């Protein structure tokens, strides 16, 4: 069967949902962050496949930017996690509920 747009989109969707599951169900902060990266990757895949099947390169340029921004974001985010760990001595998400009403 010819591999079409749907196949790639299906993969992207499943990846996205897996990442979402990781964000919601895992309790370690770093692992949650990694699942977030998974979601970003799923978006990248969708963009590239759309770009391919529309015969335009704009999607790929956008993915380029996304990768760059993701890198910057990871740097800052991890710095935050380090600072938080230093403060709270825990990377468990249930210990970080000081915004609880």
């Amino acid at each position: 069967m010819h591999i079409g747009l749907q196949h790639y989109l299906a993969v992207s969707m499943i990846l996205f949902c897996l990442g979402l599951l990781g964000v919601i169900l895992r309790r370690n902060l770093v692992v949650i962050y990694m699942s977030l990266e998974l979601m970003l990757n799923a978006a990248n895949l969708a963009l590239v496949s759309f770009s391919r099947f529309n015969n335009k390169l704009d999607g790929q340029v956008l993915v380029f930017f996304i990768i760059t921004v993701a890198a910057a974001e990871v740097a800052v985010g991890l710095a935050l996690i380090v600072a938080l760990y230093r403060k709270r001595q825990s990377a468990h998400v249930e210990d970080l509920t000081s915004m609880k009403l």
Partner: protein
Amino acid sequence: MKHELFPWLILFLPLLSAAVITLFTLRNKTVSSLISIGAVVTGFALTCLFLSTNTFHPTVTETTVNWLAIGNLSIDFGLKLDALSLMMMLIVTGVGGAIHVYSYGYMHDDRSMARFFASMSLFTFSMLGIVLANNFVMMFIFWELVGVSSYLLIGFWFEKPSAGDAAKKAFITNRLGDFGFLLGILMVWSLLGSLNFGVLNGIVTANPAALGCGATLAGLLVFCGAMGKSAQFPLHVWLPDAMEGPTPVSALIHAATMVAAGVYMLCRTLFLYDHAALQVIAYIGGFTALLAALMAVQQNDIKRIIAYSTLSQLGYMVMAVGLSGPTTAMFHLTTHSFFKALLFLSAGSVIIGMHHEQDIWQMGNLRKKMPLTFLTFFIGALALCGVPPFSGFYSKDAILALALEEKNYLLFGVAVFVAALTTFYTFRLFFVVFFGQEKSKEAAHAHESPLVITLPLVALAVLSVVGGFIGVTNYYGYQFGATHASLTVLEQLTHPFHDVFPMLCGLGAVVIGLFLAFTFYKNAATDPLPAKLGALSRWMANRFYFDELYEATVIRFHDLLATASDWFDRWIIEGVYIGLIRGGTDLSGRALRLVQTGNLQTYAFLFVFGVALLLYFVLVK
């Protein structure tokens, strides 16, 4: 100045004075008192002027301003000027003026003299309003205003708890009467369709059966108002307690004017009462007279004795109205206002002389220390007892004759007996206070009062002497259709001698009372009656336990009602309703709070959920 304006001016000057004093001059005692006195005296002068321009022949005039018109109910604000109202105006402004001048001296050392005069002016305004009213609603409004002024004046020394209580008692008892009055007014309006006295009078005289079967009830309900205001049984309990107010207040309000308002109102609305209602009125009046006279016999406070005497005389007046003698009733009202005000003011002079001691058993031999007061008091006492040729003799004799004419022997007997009692307790007071030994050191140091106090006494004494034959009955005769033609002075002087029997009975009663009082109380150091009469004396002194009766029944019921309402409010309304609302808000708050867990993942999941919903609504729908 147009003469038609005079009555409006007379009515509104005291109101203006009250307003000015309250707003501007409360701190300045002298200016306030002068404003108030000026308003009343001007009113008196204007009344005399008005009368003189009408050459003393009263013509019936009315001036009306339409105030409120709702559907077919039209309430006016109008002044009715006929013989009845003009005579009352003279009394209110004249006697009132004398009392205002007297108060200047009496209240001179009081801190709140300005407030006193403001209340007095308010009272004068309200009383004039009642007198001049030409329809029921206006009269009712001023009726209530008089109640308010009375409350303010009785409770003038409000720092004393007894004064506050007395003021409340007066107001509430009056309100009870006014409730009946209002019901009566409503009945009259619904049965006859108008509220104006002149119109109503016309309707009823043209068609005597206009009121139908509700006639007696309407009449009695309206009489309730008079019962409250004129302190008839069973609403008489407020008048003796009202003596907590300053003496000028007692003189003005509870002798001359406010209590007379009830009798005045009865005469005004005479057309309403059918035979049955009049009978009831007469008997209530007679009973009140008897009851009050009995209570007065054993009282020991000088003002209370005079207060009970007022109650008794009011009973006489109401009895006279009930016996279809409005002229007689108004005549007695006029003379009574003279000599009762005189008695109260003399008592006030005595009280001042005794440095505010009011127990008669602390006084004695004051005739040497206060000769002028002694003389005026003596004149007042003689007038009250009905000794010729003083004014009281003529008016009382007229009432006795009226009772005989109407063939009501029971009431005649009661009236004669009460005359005897009146003489007895009046002269009991007289002898104990002015004769005998000094019973305390205040009595030994008493002195005569200043001129500003004694001058009004003299004026009122003169009136008490000549009031019987200066033409008062003629004047009232114009109003009520005199059975005799206008009498000259000489004819009035000798009028009672035409009907010998009632006159002799009255004089006999006076002699008996005087003799008994002389025997018991000349040179008495203490009261000999309790020993002689035992239990009866105790009952009389305790006012026949009416207050205690009312307290046990009415007050207790009222308290129960209040407690029940409080319980309902606290538990049902506050507990259930407010509790429900409070609980509901609390619960919903708690429920919403569960969303804010502070947990990152909860927020993530809620976020995703929201996005899913959004996508669903955008894509699928």
